[in-house]
Each structure stands twice: as structure tokens, then as C-alpha cells.
């Protein structure tokens, strides 16, 4: 199938939005603005999915990532009041900037090398994995059929895993009612406070 002019325009617009959003995530010092940039990126990716005839993926991308996960991130930022700007000068790991730069350059180099050296087959403009396999059947129908025939065990195992995760979260968030509070002598059993070493000296 030929790529139409509309698809090129949509791709170009989305590429700009996705890249600008991704850049914004690391550029903004304010966590809420960074989260909003993430929304822009995810939304752009969703429209790119649409552009490649993967309507179901696009909808799920918006519902799950922009509609739920980033909302949760924002929720935590709001509730915990982390809306102050982060100190970006301090490096928790020594030399992490240099390492990050090297890795980023390496990955970018690999991608460019793959695209340029991979030959004509690699970047043919043809739809690869996202498009419909059979042209007359809708995307959702095909995904459904594959999920419940060929990949049914993988699907069931994922479902079990998610159920376990949910139950585990509920169990862990329960306060045990039987446990006695620790006596004062055992205070050293508690994990050391990471904050403010000066405060301890004052108590000593």
C-alpha cells in the first residue's frame, strides 16, 4: 500500500511532538511540567499508531498510558507535594552524566548504523508489525483472535500475574493488627535514618 501525503504530514507533526515532549521530560525542572511533556510524547505515539493502522494500540496507548499511568504519576506528585524544582546539579552516582552520554551516543550510533547498513529491506516504508495481516478484517478482530488462539497461554499467565500483583498489593498495604509496637531498647533494629546526620549528633 502506498504511503499517502496525509500520512507523511501526520508523521512529521507527530515526530516533532514526540521528540519535543521527550526533550521536555528531561529539560523541565518542575516534575509536573515534565509529566505533561510525557503526556505529549505518549499522545504523539498514539497518533503515530493510528497512522500505521494500529487503531487498537492507539486507543489502548491513550487509555492506559495517558489516561491512567501519567494521571497516577501526577496524583503522587500532587499528594506528596514534590512540586518544588529538583536540584539538578547534584549527582547521586559519580560520573553518571558521562556514562549516560556514552550510552546515548552508542544507542544512537547503533540505530543509525542499523538503518544505513541494513540494506533496502529494513526501511522499505511497508507496514511491518502494526498493520493488518489480512486486509479485510479489522485490527481489533485480528488481535482478539490471535490472543485467544495462538497466544492464549501467554494471555492467561499474564492475567494470573496481574491478579497476583493486585492481591500482593492489597496484602502489603494492610496494617497487621496483631503486631506489638517495638520496645524502646530495640530502636537500633530500625533502619537507619538517611536524612540529617546532624540531628543524631544533637541527640547524642
Amino acid at each position, binding site marked *: *500500500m502506498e504511503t*499517502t501525503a*496525509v*500520512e507523511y*504530514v*501526520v508523521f512529521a507533526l507527530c515526530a516533532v511532538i514526540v521528540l519535543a515532549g521527550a526533550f521536555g521530560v528531561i529539560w523541565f525542572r*518542575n516534575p*509536573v*511540567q515534565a509529566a*505533561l511533556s510525557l*503526556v505529549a510524547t505518549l499522545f504523539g505515539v498514539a*497518533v503515530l499508531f*493510528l*497512522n500505521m*493502522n494500529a*487503531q*487498537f494500540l*492507539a*486507543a*489502548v496507548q*491513550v*487509555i492506559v498510558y*495517558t*489516561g*491512567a499511568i501519567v*494521571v*497516577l504519576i*501526577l*496524583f503522587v506528585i*500532587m*499528594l506528596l507535594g514534590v*512540586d518544588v524544582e529538583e536540584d539538578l546539579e547534584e549527582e547521586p552516582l559519580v560520573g553518571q552524566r558521562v556514562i549516560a552520554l556514552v550510552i546515548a551516543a552508542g544507542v544512537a550510533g547503533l540505530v543509525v548504523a542499523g538503518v544505513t547498513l541494513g540494506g533496502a529491506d529494513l526501511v522499505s516504508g511497508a507496514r511491518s508489525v502494526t*498493520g*493488518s495481516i489480512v*486486509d*479485510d*478484517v*479489522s*485490527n*481489533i478482530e485480528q488481535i482478539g483472535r490471535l490472543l485467544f488462539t495462538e497466544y492464549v497461554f501467554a494471555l492467561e499467565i499474564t492475567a494470573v500475574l496481574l491478579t497476583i500483583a493486585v492481591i500482593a498489593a492489597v496484602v502489603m498495604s494492610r496494617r497487621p*493488627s496483631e503486631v506489638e509496637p517495638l520496645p524502646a531498647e530495640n530502636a537500633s533494629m530500625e533502619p537507619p535514618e538517611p536524612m540529617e546526620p546532624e540531628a543524631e549528633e544533637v541527640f547524642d
Partner: protein
Amino acid sequence: MSAPFAGSLLVGQTGDPLLFSVDAVAVGIVILKVLVIFALLLVATMFMVWFERKLISDMQNRIGPNLAGPFGILQTLADGIKFFFKEDVIPDKSQRKVFILAPYLAFVPAFLLFAVVPFGGDFNGGNDGMVTIFGRDTYLQLADPPIGVLFILAMSSLAVYGAMLAGWSSGSKYPLLGSVRASAQMVSYEAALGLSAAAVVLVTGTLSTHSMVTSQAGDGPWGVLPNWGILLTLGVPFVIFVIAGTAELNRPPFDLVEAEQELVGGFHTEYSSIRFALFFLAEFMNTITMSAIFVTLFLGGPSGPAFFGPGWMWGVIWFLAKVFIFLFMFVWFRATLPRMRYDQLMDLGWKVLIPLALGWFLVLASLEVADARQWNRWVVGAIAAVVLVGGAALLRKSVRSGAALRAEEVLD
């Protein structure tokens, strides 16, 4: 939004026949539809504000707006003009950029949602909702993506950003509390909304809003009743969807987001002038759109008998009449029901609506399987109902014992 969908409709020749071959006329028709929907939605919102005020004042033995125009019908217009000339205040402590962005984030999903709602069409005599504009066959709806219902859910999940960011960026505590409430409420009720919409998807066998309406336009149970989603899903998902939809809109009795006694004005306390007007408009526009979605999913959309004149006209008439029922219902809710408490709201959402929607979905699915395998529908239905009741009893017991444990802890 029509550009991305134009590409998606190339595969498999489904969807709006207008877009099978895209030329200047087709693009013109799409632009015309966008303009008509935009204008009609704005005008409808204006009338909705007037209608709500007038109806509530009727229910409360007041007169309501009666000075601007006949029956005060131009009151909203007067208010809008006033909003434009008010001073636009941006608080010092606010996050300026986000503060300015938030009203638009509330406004845009309200418009986009309407793109997939079929608002007219000729559904009689095998026409399948087709109308002819400028010699081209098309549907009376802006876009008919194959993911119609998912698009609705996606857009309503985006609507939370407006309220959330508005409250946070105001830099003030009441708006922040309001927006935390809003986001928790909307995220909670989205699950119930999605599960009850899935019930309709199950019985109609399609996600596209247009096919959903066409399948509901046929003859229903016993050939007398309409083939509407509300009957095919046996009513329960409809009730859940209406409750969850009302909560999603933050309308009474679920308007804790702007509980005046507790939170001044909720998330839009710090907003003034035209920015406040945008929130106001978005809320009423969402009310209209949500009513239209109720109609599309459960009441057969614009389908209905045509008596005389052109068939497409009756589609629009039926659609408006059905939407009007729900608009009236929303106003009625607001005039009669007291606001819920926050814990009641969360209990209703998580412990009643979501389990019920899930259980009902399973019942409907088992009925579908029974039909496919040609088992006895009634026996399967009875067994499924017994399982549902058993599950409900277990859930009720666990909720009760959990509440009792918590009460004990409080007493200790």
C-alpha cells in the same frame, strides 16, 4: 482529528463510505460536518445552561432568568459577554503556564468526544444510516473509527487533566483539594464506565458507534420491542453507566469536586473571566455529549420510525428527543439529590458498581456462549444468576467483616 482517521479507513473498506475515495468534495463535506458540529454544540451548550437554570427555578418555585430575550433565553449570551470583559486574574503563586493551559485541556476532550457520536441518519428500509450530501453517501457523524467506543473511553480519560491541573496550578489549597478529589473520582468511575460499555460491545458485537446504532435499529425481542442496548443487556449496565457517567461529569449528586461548603468553588476557585467561562462551558458540553453517548450505546442512537418527509430528518429528531430525556434527568438529579459523602462515593464506585458491572458482563458473556453452542438460554441464565448472587453474597460478607475489623481498630 479527522486526518489520522482518514488514513485508518483505507483498510478493508469499512466505515464511512464518504472516505473510500478522498477528493475535494469529500474533504469539503468533512469540513462542513466539523463546522456544523462545532456550531451546534456551542449553541446547544448555551441552551443547556439556560434550560438548567430555568428548569431548576421551576422545580424550586422561582422564576429564574427572565429578562434577557424571550423567557430569558439570551441570559447565557449576556453572561458570556460579561465574562469576556471581566478582569483576567492570574494568582501570583500559580504555575502560570499550566494555569493557562488547563481550561483548554478541559474543553478539547468535550468537543472531540462528539466526533464519534452518530447524530442523525436514515436507519429505515435498509439504508443503514446512510444519507446523501452533495451526491455523496455518508453517515451523519464526523468520524466512524473502528475503535469508536474505545475512543470515547480514551477521551473521557483525558478529561481528568483539565480539573487536575487547574487545581494544582492555582497554588492554593482549596483548588488542590478539589482537584485531588476530582482525579480520584474520575479514575475510579472510569472502570465502571468502561465495563458497562463493554457489555453493549458484547451484545452488539462491534466497537464502532455507527454499527452499534445499525444493529440496534433492527427488530428487537419478540418483534415488538426495539433492539436497544438497554434491553439486550437487561438494563443493569445502563443503570451503572448512567451512575458512572454522572460521576465522571462531576455533576450532582457526585459534585464533591466543587462542594461549596467545603472547598469554595473547588478546582476552579482561582479562575476568573473567560478562563472560568471555558470550564463552565466544558462542563455543560460534557453533559450534552455524555447524554448523546447514553443514547448511542443504550437507546439506539438516531434510529426510530420515520413517518413522513425525508428519513434523515427523523434520525435527527429521534436523536434530539432521546438526548433531551437525559438532559432533563441530569437537571432533575441536580434539583433533587443531596451530595454524597466522599467515603460513600468511593464505596459505591469500588464495592458496588465495579463488581456488579464485572459480574453482569460475565452473565451476558455466558448467555452469548449459550446462544453460540445452542444450549438452553434460560438454564444457563439461571445458573449464571445464581453464581452472580453467590459472588455478591461473598463480597458483601468480606466488605462487612472488613468494616467490622476497622471499627474494632478505631475502638482500640
